[in-house]
């Protein structure tokens, strides 16, 4: 993977998912944040990704039908 000195925005795009998943090392986070602080192009795309994640989650949230809950309870071993 190319470092920030090669193509900083490309590198920043590469680390966006692991950054948002909080799986980067401290040093990598620091590098990414240094770039983000001075790059509105990448910063916008990171903010977009965060709101996209929240929105996808909201849209995919479907409540369990109450009848199903009752059916599941009826599967329990009788005492």
């Amino acid at each position: 993977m190319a470092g920030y000195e090669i193509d900083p925005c490309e590198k920043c795009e590469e680390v966006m998912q692991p950054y948002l998943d909080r799986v980067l090392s401290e040093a990598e986070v620091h590098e990414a944040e240094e770039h983000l602080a001075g790059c509105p192009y990448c910063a916008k795309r990171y903010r977009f990704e965060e709101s996209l994640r929240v929105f996808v989650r909201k849209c995919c949230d479907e409540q369990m039908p109450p009848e199903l809950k009752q059916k599941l309870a009826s599967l329990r071993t009788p005492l």
Partner: protein
Amino acid sequence: MGETETDGARRVAAEARNRVRFEEEALELSDQVYRVARRLVSTREEAEDLVQETYARAFRSWRSFTPGTNLRAWLLRILTNLNIDRGRRKQRAPDEQPLEEGDYFLYNRLEQASRDGNVDEERVVERLSQDDIVGALSAVPHDFRDVVVLVDLGDFSYQDAAQILDIPIGTVMSRLHRGRRILKRELAERATTGGT
């Protein structure tokens, strides 16, 4: 003789208590289990059947659950196995999937599609409808979607997802990576053909 009978009765009573506790804890998680199931399959009916089968099996084999470990992951493991056993349609091998776009692709497309090129990055998602999102997610091939659903909607760690799906953690990471990109490509298609 009275002694052993009492011991036996105690053991039976203790086991019954453990089973009741297990069942109650499992039922408390049913909303979360359903939410994940609903996005792993296409229809509500399939999701309901799958969750019922999962609980029937979980209640039968409750003794194989190790108390103190992650019950939600244990239930989801049963559920994903059942889902695969149901003979879901064959997928093309991951390698044959078309190459997905980069991570900035969707935003770039939304920006291009806006008239003045000036979009509020925190509001632009609102141009997508719930149907767009649900439709795009169901268009992601199963192998990728399973991981995206478990991690992004089910809040499972990479490690939990690896155990649930019985695949190496590296595979979880690469499928997640590609799955999210495929999802964004699908969203981009919907967002830019929707006419908004």
